[in-house]
């Protein structure tokens, strides 16, 4: 019990990295691909495509939680809203996943929040 108590002192809370909303969108693409196809290789490949064809726009926000970086800066977009991109991707039906295929740019059109944190470069 003493050991458990001491281990409780390990880090339990930390601010997220600024790239988090962008990275979560990439993981969501991989996850929905895996959920719908049961194909781990395709899932990893699509994540590779995401990394190759996009750049993350680091998220910063002020004391009110309003985003202060990227295209959404100072437009009243809240920090948590930037995760709407990953959220909507993770809610896509399998028919939609099939239709989107390897077109990463098309995946990122599901939510306006994607353009606040992700820049499509290819």
């Amino acid at each position, binding site marked *: *019990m*003493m*050991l*458990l*108590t*001491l*281990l*409780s*002192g*390990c*880090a*339990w*809370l*930390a*601010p*997220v990295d600024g790239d*988090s909303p962008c*990275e*979560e969108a*990439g*993981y*969501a693409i*991989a*996850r929905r*691909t*895996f*959920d*719908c196809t*049961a194909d*781990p290789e395709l*899932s*990893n490949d*699509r*994540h*590779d495509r995401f990394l190759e064809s996009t750049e993350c726009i680091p*998220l910063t*926000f*002020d*004391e*009110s*939680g309003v985003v202060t970086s990227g295209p959404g800066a100072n437009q009243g977009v809240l*920090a*948590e809203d930037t*995760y*709407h991109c*990953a*959220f*909507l*991707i*993770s*809610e*896509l*039906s*399998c028919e939609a996943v099939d239709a989107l295929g390897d077109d990463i740019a098309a995946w990122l059109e599901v939510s306006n929040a994607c353009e606040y944190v992700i820049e499509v470069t290819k």
Partner: protein
Amino acid sequence: MIGLLLLAGAAQAEVLDLDKDIYQCTPDDMAPIWGSAGYSNALEAFRTNATTWSSTRFAEEKLLSHTEALDGEDGGVFAWQFDLSYNVARLPVYSKDAGAECPWEYRISERVIDMQAHNLGVAFRVGRVGAFYASSVTFGAPAQDPFSRGMLWSMGAPIYAFVPLMTAPLTGSFQNQIGASAYAQEYILGLSADLDVADLNVGYTRSRGLYASAFEKRLGLYGTLVLRDRLSTIGQAEAGLRRLTIADGAGATSLFGRALPLTESVDTDAADDQPGVIQQLLTGNVVQEGIGGYVDLDVAYAVSPEPLLHKALIAVHSVNFLENGGLRLQGGMVTLPRMAWYGVDGGRFPSVRADGDFRLLDGDADVLVNASLLYNDAEQLALYPFAENAISARFSMETVW
């Protein structure tokens, strides 16, 4: 105990600037971020915890291992086990109250997920036949501050779990999840028989699962199968040769193949048209225990999902640890494949495990006490691939008569 909690809190305060008063960032004020890998991982971790660390596994490890050794004599075992894992997943959360008492920089943050599994069971044999019962209570939640975390896991959880563990046959089997917290309880009832050449065990879990195992006595051939989710899913399958002694001093050799559910998707509303996807980690294992009385080797090669050396571990321990107990220290490496859908890059991880196995033998009722500390344990990482750098503590007590 209180002093230890304060010490833990003080250590934490050195790492995180207490001026920011992050202790005001309580789980009550935060919401998990849906759609994130961390949220999906947390849900899956709870499900794996409830199913894998369920009564079947406990019954096999802590109950049937004893009754199989009775060899026609009357006897039995009563066992209890507590398993706690810290930092199993990292949950992105947002705090709507950040900026008030909680620092505004923590509006979006990561909170780690802790989980526990608690088991209680009994098994006995009268002559060649016997029965066994085991129950499990599993619980997982986002970590609170060190003080609350320490109180919950070292005191609260072990105490509250006892009642449902003992009353599981009356209260049934269920899983409940609210936000990023989950609770589950389960039990198994089974029969066992010693057919002279082999031991057979069959059990039925309240959640409509099945456990079956057979152990052949002459060579040590064995097989185990766990079906769950209304018999639709292989929860675990293992077959091979257990602890065959070929030469004096070389120790006991185990060779076996094992299938463990490496990954499993969690259904979301949008995914109702698809069943959960399960990918099995198929491994070939070679375990050599008690080389020279002091050394164990444990190597596993994964065949699926991709060929790789899954683990290579070496342990040193007290002489004849298997028979006599004592202390054991294991180290090595574990390799996992890349799994982007979990946000996992894969790769090699250092793995360390320490065990203390103490035995009070008086002939009529022997008491066995075990305590283990695990860091990047191979089995833990197979079950929770996203649990990089997770630490687990495990305690068990068995009374054998």
